[in-house]
């Protein structure tokens, strides 16, 4: 869970990342059931090492869910395997809020709607191949 909570600082670190050279994959990450409230933090990773460790995401986005924004498209990603971590910052404080015992209280999810095993979903469960127009539809829970 703590790794999930670490999305926020990682997002901040990675905010300067720009688009890669023109390649085939256009990745759309959608949260169709997200409540119109706060913001949705999205981080896209392109390797297991970056996804599971301290590495930076390849792409990040902050969706204005309060204004109805529930999807984002990352254009021109190199074809390859990716995984997405996201959480719904319902109160817009920029943090993954936790209960007094340290468990997340704001909805979070991973690509493939993968669920972990007493922690964040593994790269193995969350990874997907992106090539051409690719959509990940994710339920934040």
């Amino acid at each position, binding site marked *: *869970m703590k790794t999930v909570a670490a999305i926020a600082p990682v997002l901040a670190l990675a905010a300067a990342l720009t688009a890669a050279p023109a390649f085939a994959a256009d990745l759309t990450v959608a949260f169709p059931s997200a409540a119109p409230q706060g913001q949705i933090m999205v981080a896209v990773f392109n390797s297991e090492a970056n996804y599971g460790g301290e590495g930076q995401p390849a792409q990040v986005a902050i969706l204005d869910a309060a204004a109805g924004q529930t999807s984002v498209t990352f254009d021109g990603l190199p074809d390859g395997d990716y995984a997405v971590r996201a959480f719904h910052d*319902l109160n817009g404080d920029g943090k993954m*809020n936790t*209960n*007094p*015992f340290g*468990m*997340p*209280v704001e909805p*979070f999810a991973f690509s493939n709607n993968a*669920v*972990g*095993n*007493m922690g*964040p*979903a593994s790269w193995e469960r969350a990874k997907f191949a992106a090539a051409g127009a690719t959509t990940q539809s994710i339920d934040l*829970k």
Partner: protein
Amino acid sequence: MTPSRRSFLMGAAALSAAVATPEMTRAAAALDAVAATKADWALATQDVEGDIARQTMRLVHGRAPAELQGALYRNGPAKFRRPGGSATHWFDGDGMMRAFRIQDGQATLEARFADTPKRRTETELAAVVTPGFGTKGDGRARIGSNDDANAANTAVMVAGDQVWALWEAGSPLALSASDLSTRNFVTLRDDLKGMPFQAHPRYAPDGSIWNVGSAGGQAVIWHLRPDRSLSDAQVVPLPRASYMHDFTATDRHVILVLQPWVFTTHAMPVTAGLTWRPEMGTQVLVLDKDDLSKRRLYELPGFFHFHLGDAWAERDGTIRFDVAASGDPRFAVDGARVLVDGHGVVPGDPAKLALITLHPDGRADMAYSDVVGEFPKADPRRAGLKRSLTAHTSGETRGRPLPTGLAVHDWDSGRSHAFEFGVHQVVEEAVFVPKPGATAERDAWLVGPSVNLKDGRTELHIFDVARIEDGPVATWQADVAMPAGFHGVWAG
């Protein structure tokens, strides 16, 4: 047995759980099938394959009291075994809510599984994969939060037009009271989502409800208004990280009994992280309901327990409550595995009732009765107040698991009255239901089911508390046998 040897044996039990694979489980099941050695009581932990539609129960004995109208909701595990791996511990089966409805002298029974993430995952995989209290689980588990492991299988409380299926380490799961269909996990306040809400809420004389949720060396103390909305929740530090299934309360105090079964490692299942250290004794932490920072700590010799009775405070500050106590946690570790195996010997002795007294001068003492008993229940009109009676299951003997009778113990007179069905019945917890308009403690019924092993059917019994030894005043029989459940609540 010395403590160190016991610890070693428990460690060994945990280790063997850790290396059990689904293949081993299947092999063991195959061996079982060959040996066909199921005990006569194995019906009490059989699997139920699907929901059970409401059916009219057949009156097979006596006559129902006309004034008795209401529903007994009961929760308990009802699915342990799947082709690709099984729950190995009684506490880890899928929760199934039962409703016994009594009206106009008739009784009906229906039962429905709690539709949990755990059950959905394991149905899809055709395997029990989720770690639990005593089941190791495996790498296929999908646990993003503690409620993904929630079996919703332990107890139940009524909340308006819902009943909440309670577990130990997660949120209540709201079900419709009318058809038992699953609605949602209950979040009492957004910032408390997922906080553990244990299976034994205590009802206060003012109509409010207290409960606890523990996590190692701290616990959340819940206080709910009579309408089940949250009044307050506070986290308090505990003097030790003890396994706690129950707590108790007087009208003025929350009482946490910290047994010497302590978390010493982070491990799954839960039992693998616990070590029995009787030399530490049992601590009793008393918190003032009006100010949870006001606390007193009492020391008792070490004992093991799951269940406590309602507590009361006397005028001079003395606090008393009862407990179903035993010498060690062997039932919790090994006995509950024997139950799911459906054969074998449950180690240790059955629990006995004891009365704990906390004196104003800081001393504490514990007086054991010679009464074998579990699942203590008391008069809800006196919850948190002075009472004399404890109703409980009885008849369990060394070497044969599960109760066979019901009894009422009077702490003032020291006398017990019991009705023994015999070993062809597995008797479940009975709830204490006051007679309408009556106030005396004995003016009440006990309402609870049993599994009739001879007939292969679940029965529902009504006893008069004042004459329990006369046997049930009414008994109905279903046309199915449900596995034995854990805890219930009466909705009058």
